[in-house]
């Protein structure tokens, strides 16, 4: 399925943001989504790191797609991803040791983020370089957006701050449970609920519109 590259590339970019949002719609890459979103800064850096890896791995996979034998493609993809993750790991260490410490093993665990392998297998191995880069960028930004939603909510409620800035007067009693693991599950569950609600309303409206026109 070779798609015409220039025509579809904007759409490849947009679809990751909302319609096929990796977290809210496809429910992929849950582990980092839940694990590092106890603060906005962590969520943002994780999102950027993942975007970096997904764009580069999509590029390389798409470039090499005609040379990779079908039988060993998954192993090859994982090796490509692991290489870029190692790069990111050292990069973050060079930029900020604090962030590296906060994210800990979860930077290395980007390797096993199903989202990245999923995009390599489902998109980059079948499409041209340009479209694959756009797809990776869209998915990465959509992923970062979801992480920020989750991280923002959890940090505001759990520590009363956003990106380290205090939001509430001194008397505010933070909900400590929100920055604990169980808070992550709750928040994501509720966010999915909100997302479903918005989507079903959109569908309803579209159905009404269609009825009106027909």
């Amino acid at each position, binding site marked *: 399925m070779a798609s015409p590259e220039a025509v579809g590339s904007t759409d490849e970019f947009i679809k990751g943001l909302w319609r096929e949002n990796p977290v809210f719609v496809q*429910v*992929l890459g*849950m*582990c980092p989504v*839940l*694990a590092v979103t106890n603060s906005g800064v962590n969520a943002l850096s994780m999102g950027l790191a993942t975007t970096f890896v997904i764009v580069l791995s999509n590029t390389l996979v798409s470039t090499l797609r005609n040379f990779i034998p079908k039988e060993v493609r*998954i*192993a090859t993809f*994982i*090796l490509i991803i*692991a*290489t870029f*993750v*190692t790069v990111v*790991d*050292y990069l973050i260490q060079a930029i900020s040791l604090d962030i590296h410490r906060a994210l800990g*093993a979860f930077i*290395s*665990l980007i*390797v*096993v*983020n*199903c989202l990245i*392998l999923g995009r390599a297998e489902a998109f980059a191995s079948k499409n041209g370089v340009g479209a694959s880069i756009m797809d990776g960028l869209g998915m990465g930004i959509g992923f970062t957006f979801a992480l920020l939603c989750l991280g923002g909510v959890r940090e505001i409620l759990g520590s009363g701050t956003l990106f380290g800035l205090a939001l509430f007067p001194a008397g505010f009693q933070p909900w400590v*449970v929100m920055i*604990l*693991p*169980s*808070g*992550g*599950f*709750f928040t*994501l*569950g*509720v966010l*999915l*609920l909100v997302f*479903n*609600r918005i989507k*079903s309303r959109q569908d309803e409206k579209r159905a009404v519109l269609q009825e009106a026109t027909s």
Partner: protein
Amino acid sequence: MSDEALGTIFLNACLVNNFVLAYFLGICPFLGVSAKLETATRMGGAVCFVMLVSSVCAFGINQLLIAINAPYLQLISYIVVIASTVQLVEMFIKKMSPALFRQLGIFLPLITTNCAILGLALFQTNKGYDFLQCIVYALGAGIGFTLALILMAGIREKLELATVPHLVQGTAITLIIAGILSLSFMGFAGLGA
């Protein structure tokens, strides 16, 4: 080198810092395969086995990488070992029980991208466990994973009978249940200290 007692390591990996409910590792199979109790049990068994084997291999590789002074190869070599172990288990299950093979479906090869297994290999390296500690750690983590999976599957089987508002059906309700489970696992805090 770490001098933690073996029992402490086991309890820590299994209950206090349960891989699924406290570290969020292996959420994908946790959400994907936990609809039926039987599948969940077998999936847990497969993950346990892969964990044990890859933990032992990761220990050996780490020693080798330290010896040749190439720590930047750590991630790449770990993932290769895990991928080949999973391949092995897949062939084994296909031969021994085709029915189970069909049941596990896509989730069997996906054990490769199960973060719990790579996470285990990375954590044991970070903590500097020796050989025996590694094995106990892997066992604890595997049993903890299976426990969480089985608990979840049990609840979800009961949930089939309940009426759930259609907006939270599927992943949303599962995540909220997971939150409650995780809350209850916090009760184990301090057990393995």
